[in-house]
């Protein structure tokens, strides 16, 4: 996950496309929550809440 974020930062820097950053951050956050809640070991704990 961190290496992915670092890749994104280097990519945006190289292409000078910083205006994409907020959008990418929002989407990665959603992605992280979804992946975390469905495939991690804590999934069963989240059953009652999600």
């Amino acid at each position: 996950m961190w290496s992915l974020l670092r890749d994104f930062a280097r990519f945006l820097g190289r292409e000078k496309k910083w205006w994409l950053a907020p959008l990418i951050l929002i989407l990665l956050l959603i992605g992280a929550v979804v992946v975390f809640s469905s495939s991690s070991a804590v999934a069963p704990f989240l059953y009652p809440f999600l």
Partner: protein
Amino acid sequence: MSRPKTVRSLRDRFAIGASLIPPVALLMIASRAGWVPGSPRVYLAAMPVVLGLGMLFPTLAEPWHRRFSRMRSWLGGRLVFLLLLGVYGVAVVPLAFLMRLFGKRPLDVSRSGSSWVQSKGYGSLRDPF
């Protein structure tokens, strides 16, 4: 023909047991509103019990767990869909209008002139961008 014995990991047993908790949680909420008899505390106490029972007898609780998982992933898919639709409305569309305001067009949709673009090179193989 004897049925093959399924060996379940502790994690699977836990997942099966945990899928029994949400209905009890619903009952707890309903009891608070007075729709079902019993006090919320009883239902709260029942949660670890059903979890334990589910873990002890996973074969019995399995069909419910399967149905519950399917429902949950369907619901999850719908939720993510709506969430992303929201992101589109509050992030993508405004950003798109801002870009247009500043004269930035991500897509070259003009119809005239050569469409050749000088290649910038392939970049490093190590980078996923």
